């Protein structure tokens, strides 16, 4: 049985009666996935990221909630926050905390919302349903997603407390498929922190798609920390629609998983602002892939992208960043920088920064560097009595920390920093860092 047939058995059907709009979303995705299967490396978008290891394992979705999370979760982060916890792809009410949500904010897990009569979810889904999905891993997610987050914020409401979304994997060979839908009305503000955690000892597959529509002047701050288990596969995609003067600020730390791909696609309307920062760490045999695509559709929009990658041991870091400026999108200001540290002879960095420009009054640039630690800096530290190994660690940490420092939420910053320190190979740094 090939992998497509295996997953076909888990496709969500039978929702057509109650939710024709959901069926309308799933049906074409199902068809495309069945017809074409997983993406293959001959396709341009997947040339550096083969899916062989993902296709080899037959992952199975957990039927229902299997219990409360077995391992303690980042308590520091959950303080002073609303929290939504998904275990093996299902919402766990007992572990979540949504108390005290103001009425301007609609926040519900999808599984619950679908059971609530009179809930109008169609609006959250239709804005993206029209846009054809860009590849079959996204189709795979659409065909299978079992739960997710529905967030709808009323105009001009500023939600100060962050929403923390935890994705936990516990089941062996488990398949978690989630789809989150966010809508921020005109002038609304939110702060979302997503964390992906999984066990080290057995493989699992998590796919998570987030669709966010941000109306005029809406603003979203978003931190994503991926520290899945060492044997797991991870795919997460973000599709953003930024209307006039909307603002998105995203921080990504992709540190875990054996195979990981993170996609960020954004459509920018006039005067929209999009800021993306990301840190990648590929060590052991890890494969870390980040793909971004920013479509500048309106005038005066600006985007900044700042990514750093570290490839060590047999790790591989892959970056693809495409900036597209549509005809008429004058005064676009788009910049992208990708800096990499390549620390081992078996590691690899691949970068594919791209500019596609169809308007003339624009300022666009991208820059890529691949290099090593500065030997003089290593020497300087050694001359101050620090061992060579430790000196290298300090410098590698500093390289990453420059980005980590820019996360403005203290709890999230600490979580990312701790996770990075724990993942950095051979890390036995003292507490002074």
């Amino acid at each position: 049985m090939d992998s497509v047939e295996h997953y076909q058995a888990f496709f969500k059907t039978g929702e057509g009666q109650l939710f024709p709009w959901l069926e309308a979303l799933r049906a074409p995705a199902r068809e495309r996935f069945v017809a074409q299967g997983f993406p293959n490396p001959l396709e341009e978008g997947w040339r550096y990221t083969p899916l062989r290891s993902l296709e080899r394992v037959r992952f199975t979705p957990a039927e229902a909630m299997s219990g409360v999370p077995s391992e303690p979760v980042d308590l520091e982060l959950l303080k002073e926050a609303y929290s939504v916890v998904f275990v093996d792809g299902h919402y766990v009410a007992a572990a979540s905390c949504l108390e005290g949500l103001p009425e301007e904010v609609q926040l519900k897990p999808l599984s619950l919302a679908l059971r609530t009569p009179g809930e109008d979810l169609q609006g959250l889904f239709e804005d993206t349903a029209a846009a054809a999905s860009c590849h079959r891993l996204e189709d795979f997610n659409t065909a299978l997603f079992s739960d997710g987050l529905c967030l709808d914020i009323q105009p001009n409401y500023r939600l100060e407390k962050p929403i923390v979304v935890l994705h936990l994997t516990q089941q062996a060979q488990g398949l978690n498929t989630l789809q989150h839908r966010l809508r921020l009305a005109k002038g609304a503000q939110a702060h979302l922190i997503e964390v992906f955690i999984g066990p080290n000892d057995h493989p699992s597959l998590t796919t998570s798609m987030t669709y966010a529509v941000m109306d005029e002047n809406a603003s979203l701050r978003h931190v994503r920390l991926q520290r899945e288990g060492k044997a797991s596969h991870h795919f997460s995609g973000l599709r953003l629609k930024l209307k006039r003067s909307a603002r998105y600020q995203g921080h990504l730390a992709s540190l875990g998983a054996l195979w990981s791909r993170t996609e960020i696609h954004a459509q920018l309307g006039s005067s929209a602002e999009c800021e993306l920062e990301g840190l990648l760490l590929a060590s052991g045999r890890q494969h870390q892939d980040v793909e971004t695509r920013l479509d500048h559709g309106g005038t005066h929009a600006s985007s900044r992208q700042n990514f750093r990658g570290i490839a060590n041991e047999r790790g591989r870091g892959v970056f693809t960043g495409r900036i597209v400026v549509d005809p008429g999108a004058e005064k676009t200001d788009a910049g992208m920088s990708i800096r990499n540290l390549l620390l081992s002879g078996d590691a690899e960095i691949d970068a594919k920064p791209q500019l596609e420009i169809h308007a003339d009054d624009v300022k666009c640039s991208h820059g890529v560097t691949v290099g090593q630690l500065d030997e003089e800096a290593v020497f300087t530290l050694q001359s101050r009595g620090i061992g060579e190994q430790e000196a290298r660690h300090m410098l590698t940490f500093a390289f990453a920390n420059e980005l980590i420092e820019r996360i403005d939420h203290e709890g999230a910053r600490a979580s990312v920093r701790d996770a990075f320190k724990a993942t950095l190979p051979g890390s036995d740094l003292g507490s002074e860092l």
Partner: protein
Amino acid sequence: MSASQEQIDNLIQKEYKPGFVTDLEADTLPPGLNEDVIRAISARKNEPPFMLAWRLKAYQQWLTMREPDWAYLDYQAIDYNSISYYSAPKVKEAPKSLNEVDPKLIETYKKLGIPLHEQERLAGVAVDAVFDSVSVATTFKDKLKEAGVIFCSFSEAVHTHPELIQQYLGSVVPPSDNFFAALNAAVFSDGSFVFIPKGVRCPMELSTYFRINAANTGQFERTLIIAEENTHVSYLEGCTAPMRDENQLHAAVVELIALDHAEIKYSTVQNWYPGDEEGRGGIYNFVTKRGDCRGHHAKISWTQVETGSAITWKYPSCILRGDHSIGEFYSVAVSNHRQQADTGTKMIHVGKNTKSTIISKGISAGRAENTYRGQVKILPGAINARNYTQCDSLLIGPKCGAHTFPYIEVKEPTARLEHEATTAKISEDQLFFCQQRGLSAEDAVSMIVNGFCKQVFKELPMEFAVEAQALLGISLEGSVG
């Protein structure tokens, strides 16, 4: 801008100067491609059997290949059976000296500004001129022979130096490399051959002029340059074609081989007919150019000024195999009206301490699309490899496009690589500043564009630099206003 409508109209109407047709009797094969055509080409050129076998094998490979579609180009499918694969000016016997070359041909080259007569020579550039499918004359042969340099047409080299051809032909760009390389290998009719023996510094610049004249033909030439140990050669290439409403195909292959301490400098000013403002006609230019630094301390430097062709698909590359070898790529690609250019380079670092530099300047105007596509690949073991890449695009007008698609693959931890790309337009402030000082809008644009391209122009040999600047002016005429 302040240039009056009349002035602008005058400029737009300025014609593509080399766009005339020379009325010559030609020996042309009927359109179509099959084994018989290949046999006929080989027979016309009186080739030894190994060449025919090589061509037929390439043809068989070509039949199994698919035309590449990854480039950012949009053109009507090429019907390979409607092209005539061989056309040569008719001569009763091979010309023994320049005096026997058809005076009409000489006239054509005069019009193009290539002095074939040695008396009219320009600063000692030896020229091999290829007219449609055959090489018509090579100048300065004797002087080169004295130095030990072999510079002749490809078909001549096949007869006089078959051992060199057998050893090197297809060793850098094998027929199986890509669709157009295979097609070229099967049907190529002529080209230039250069061999610089050990220790020789070529006493003058070598140059080839390519001219498409006949209608409904394709031009397929092949250049092979071999630089042995401790040599230096600078080679220039220029091309033009008449103005016609239909598209013509040009698929060339260039192979460079540099052994220890050899240096090859290859400069191109490509000015094939670009088609008219509406995109009618023009040359489809699909070229495979690759240099192989086989020896240590070898250096290959590509400089190109691409102003012509309706479609350009061209990626001059360097394989840096030898330790300490150097690869360079300097490019100015201009596209105006409805031209489409997808061009760039590949630098493959294999040897230790290899270095490469890529400077690419793309200028897009009118409704043109200009794409830089490049790859820098650093293989494991290429210790201390170093690459610097800079791609700048200049946009003139709101309807054109400029794109940058670099691929960077690094597998060596001691390598250092930098890549930067920018896109911008000529700012109103710059223009205003120049005009305030008495320059016309056209002159100001021309000056700014020349400044933008300066890094590349300074790499060109003198005569070419002058020509390139003039060409740039003509290509962009009518784009500002």
